[in-house]
């Protein structure tokens, strides 16, 4: 009598399906090895990560496909953290990062894949500070930026910077920032405030380098930061100086390379273990003059001549 009760049948079905789902989910954690072959016999290099670098990585991939048709590089964005997460899971061959991997992440990658991530500096990027083109402000110091963005900072109005911003009647500075785990956000915070302090809450945290410039272009009261390659005609790049009284420099190739522009940073690519085969050839090509010319063409800063030798550091 009990064996026919619907309750028991349902329980059994419940258990069966629960087990099936568990197996399915556990089975999804497959890892890929080396470069995989696509159905057409091409080698495929999986490349993902930094939103800042996605345009550059895409151009590299396209140019490389023209030179070396037997290799196809598949590029996706999503952010430095996304690329690192994929590297830890072993699903990409190269991760693009606009920040360094943290020690914790290195350890996870080692533990998960058995290989040590290798770091390559492939170019530099200058972070430009943008304001709306109707804003009369021309230059700013790192200290002022820290007062605007940092926790406890005192500058909240344009008049405190000594300017009258006629397009912004209520004088409030609208801070435009990035989501708190993007590489750009980390780098900007570290440059302004060091590692000890945080940004003020209440900034508009946008999800992409381009969105920041877009919003600043539409908002006369706004200030924002993003890669210098993202400038449009609706915004103005501010000159930045290290301290009050010191000269201010516009972000450009020269000022980023000679170190006079204070907010420039290296761009990284990470591979799992010492790269070999097609991945190694691809990275060597990126370090070549052709690859570095593409860096410049995409609005970033190429490596100086003496750094154009591929070497890795952990």
């Amino acid at each position, binding site marked *: 009598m009990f064996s026919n009760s619907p309750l028991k*049948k*349902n329980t059994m*079905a*419940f258990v069966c*399906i*629960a087990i099936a*789902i568990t197996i399915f*989910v556990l089975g999804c954690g497959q890892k890929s090895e080396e470069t995989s072959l696509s159905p057409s016999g091409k080698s495929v290099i999986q490349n993902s990560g930094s939103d800042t670098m996605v345009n550059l990585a895409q151009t590299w991939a396209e140019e490389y496909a023209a030179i070396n048709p037997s290799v196809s590089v598949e590029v996706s964005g*999503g*952010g*430095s*953290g*996304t690329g*690192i*997460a994929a590297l*830890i*899971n072993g699903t990409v061959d190269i991760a693009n990062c606009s920040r360094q991997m*943290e020690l*914790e*992440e290195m350890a*996870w990658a080692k533990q998960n894949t058995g290989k040590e991530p290798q770091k390559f500096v492939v170019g530099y990027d200058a972070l430009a500070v943008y304001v709306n083109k109707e804003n009369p402000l021309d230059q700013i110091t790192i200290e002022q930026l820290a007062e605007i963005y940092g926790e406890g900072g005192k500058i909240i109005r344009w008049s405190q910077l000594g300017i009258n911003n006629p397009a*912004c*009647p*209520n004088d*409030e500075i*609208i801070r435009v920032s990035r*989501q*708190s*785990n*993007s590489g750009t*956000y*980390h780098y900007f915070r570290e440059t302004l405030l060091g*590692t*000890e*302090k*945080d940004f003020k*809450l*209440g*900034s*508009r*945290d*946008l*999800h992409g380098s381009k969105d920041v410039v*877009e*919003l600043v272009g*539409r*908002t006369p*009261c*706004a200030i924002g930061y993003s890669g210098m390659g993202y400038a449009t005609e609706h915004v103005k790049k501010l000159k930045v100086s290290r301290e009050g009284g010191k000269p201010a420099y516009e972000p450009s190739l020269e000022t980023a390379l000679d170190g006079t522009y204070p907010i420039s940073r290296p761009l990284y690519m990470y591979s799992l273990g010492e790269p070999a085969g097609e991945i190694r050839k691809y990275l060597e090509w990126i370090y070549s003059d052709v690859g570095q010319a593409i860096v410049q063409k995409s609005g970033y800063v190429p490596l100086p001549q003496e750094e154009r030798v591929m070497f890795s550091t952990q």
Partner: protein
Amino acid sequence: MINRQRLETLAEPVIEWTIRLCGISAIIFVFGIFFFVFREGADFLFHKLDLVEFFTSPEWYPTSVSHKRYGVLALIAGTASVTLLAMAIAVPFGLGAAIFVSEFCSPKLKEAFKITIELLAAIPSVVWGFIGLTIMNEMIIDLFSAPIGLTVLNGGIILALMSVPIIVSIGEDALKAVPDSYREAAEALGATRWQVVYRVLLPAAKNGLLAAVLLGVARAIGETMAVLMATGHAVKIPHSLLDSVRTLTATIAAELGEAPVHSEHYQVLFLIGVLLFSITFVVNLSADLIVKGIRQE
């Protein structure tokens, strides 16, 4: 013959089981989703999280180097403010439109109306978000001379526009389900059209209308992409309609992709998922209880 009979006796339980599986799969999926979301965050919940800080602090610093703080009060306030504003706009408009479509308009107009409203429902949320980010942003800056247009007001209006089609179509169905004999009886007693609606139809259809409103609320709480783009995404407890806010859903959408897997930040984002799950569960449960309560009267 024998073969066919055997086939039928075999087929019968197979079909029965398939249908049964379809029925219970919904339950299993819901519990499965809850279980997996909860499992990702459970470790942090039980070992490190200060629940008081979690619910009462407005300080959301998940990636601070020196002092990480996980307070979601500002995010809850963001979700609540945008949802409340959206409902304040969408409920009167939605129910009004449902009453008009079902009771007052001519059959031809009714068709045109329904098609338009369905078209409104078919606009993807990222398009709504884009409208918020561009057109509405500039309109709010001009109209209110606000410093920025990405505000509670912007998000609330966008969400209201997104919930209205749901409220209208479900509300209209509920009104249509009221038998015509009710309307005829009321009119025979000399009631005006307004009296028919107010005294007869609304009480008779209140379960369905409540369901329509609650589905609208659920849509507003769960919406992600549009509010991510339209509210300004700023961690801040709003003091006016012209403040920027950040919602629970938008926080998950913006940060989960870049949070290192299994880090504290990643786990806290999953706990926010559990929180959202609980909120919608409470909304649905109270709806069920209210509807049951109404039925028993």
